């Protein structure tokens, strides 16, 4: 089933006098529970389309449909609500909140998504997810004391704790060595499969493609037909 559709999306950046069209009409549909990987040369527009899909910036033209609702017509607040409760994000760096413990990072995300769970259930859920990402032994640690791979695993936990429908990941393994990258990729695949989360992921790493259900190649703001 298609949960997410990107329809003729264009994006133009204005640098001074010069208009640069970075996306020239992207069409993409994402199937429920599947992982779609975006690959392509640097500067081809992968991050741009990912962040537009994730509601972090707006398209210049075209439509983005999430569960049939047109996000391009929504106001900031409506998009924020969707981001808070339906989307999860993982980026190249973990972007954790420096003054919160691992456990608190996840509690914050539950808070933001306006969960109806009681405090006790929230705690149990956090413990469960931390176990999944094998970080339960560091639940009281602050980000500064975690290794890169550990931070990234916490970031993944934060991205899925509120059971989002969509997961957006931009080079989630770029800062990790190949062993850690594999672990993280496996983790993303297992979690999204068990929780039935639809994933759009950008990657540079050929090895990571084996974990994806679909691979889409971009070039100069367009999708190459495979």
């Amino acid at each position: 089933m298609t949960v997410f559709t990107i329809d003729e999306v264009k994006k133009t950046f204005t640098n001074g006098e010069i208009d640069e069209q970075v996306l020239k009409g992207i069409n993409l549909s994402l199937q429920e529970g599947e992982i779609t990987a975006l690959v392509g040369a640097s500067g081809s527009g992968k991050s741009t389309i990912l962040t537009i899909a994730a509601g972090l910036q707006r398209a210049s033209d075209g439509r983005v449909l999430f569960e049939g609702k047109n996000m391009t017509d929504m106001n900031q607040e409506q998009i924020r609500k969707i981001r808070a409760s339906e989307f999860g994000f993982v980026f190249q760096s973990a972007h954790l909140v420096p003054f919160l413990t691992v456990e608190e990072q996840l509690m914050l995300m539950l808070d933001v998504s306006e969960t109806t769970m009681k405090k006790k259930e929230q705690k149990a859920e956090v413990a469960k997810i931390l176990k999944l990402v094998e970080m339960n032994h560091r639940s009281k640690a602050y980000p500064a004391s975690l290794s890169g791979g550990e931070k990234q695993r916490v970031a993944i936990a934060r991205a899925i704790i509120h059971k989002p429908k969509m997961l957006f990941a931009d080079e989630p393994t770029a800062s990790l060595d190949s062993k850690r990258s594999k672990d993280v990729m496996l983790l993303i695949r297992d979690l999204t499969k068990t929780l039935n989360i639809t994933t759009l992921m950008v990657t540079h790493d050929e090895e990571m493609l084996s974990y994806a259900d679909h691979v889409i190649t971009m070039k100069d703001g367009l999708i190459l037909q495979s």
Partner: protein
Amino acid sequence: MNLAWKEIKKNKTKFIILGSIIFLVSFLTFIISGLSNGLSQDNAALIKDLPEGQFYMNADADATYNLSRIDASMQDKAMNGQKDAAALSIQMGFVNDADDKQHSIAFVTSTDSKLFESVEKGEIVLDRSLEDKGLKVGDTLTNNQFSGEFTVKAFVDQKKYSHAPVAYINMENYKEIYRVNEMQLVFVPGKEKALEIEGLQSFSNKDFLNTIPSYSAEQMSLNMIVWFLVVISGMLFAIFFYMMNVQKIGLYGILKAIGVKTSSLFGMMWSQMIVITLIALTFSVALSQGFTMIAPAGMPFSLTLQTTVQLSIVFIIIGFIGATLSGIQIKKVEPLQAIQQGEV
């Protein structure tokens, strides 16, 4: 989740520094304000401690009480039926003690009124500061214009005029020393609007204080200092909150990206600002009140709790405005920017 408090707990040093700055600046302002108030008490406690009311002086006196002469009929008209009204005169002068040492004082005399000391002929009531200079009850004082002698009858607290201690004397003695028959002023206590009296000009207490040239000039510069301090501290607050917010742009971006409301981010900043400011102000209010108690007796220092509280409220308002202005960045932060700016 209480992000504001969690951040303060994790970044104690940063917030302690911010708090110290607020503490130091507000403490400085309180002390300067205490000195300013003290000087003004020293200059005119005699007038400042009177209840709210009206001063009358002769309309021809050009708002200079020294030139004012109120004749008996006008004095009667002004005082007619007014409770606690008094006709009075103030003159700078001096007295000599038994060792022939001279003391500058402000002679004050008045008709019977509970607002001023009533003194028998040949007696004198002095401000307490002269007791510290070695005068005692029962001492005799002289004045070269006065045929008799004054016997010190009592000391009273905090009666100063033009930085000189007040000396209450009997009206007859006053008339002899200054060779006048009329009083300079009539004071009528009461909050109602001044009664218009032909030939007399009325002044509120505050207006009257401002007719004393040394007083208005001195107060103007002192008030200027206090308000400059307040304005400068306001700017300091704003700059500090601004720098803190700039440091946290990345964090705000991430929080926005995961869906935290902009209003929650403002709430976080405001509550931090209020907590830090309140703690800092509590310290500086306590310390400045403590200073009031230990300030050396001769030092003109007077800081009421009311003044401190008023200034504190001004500080909180200024801090709030400063924080809010610097917080406009929060509104402008694009989540995407933060994500693209690498490690947070």
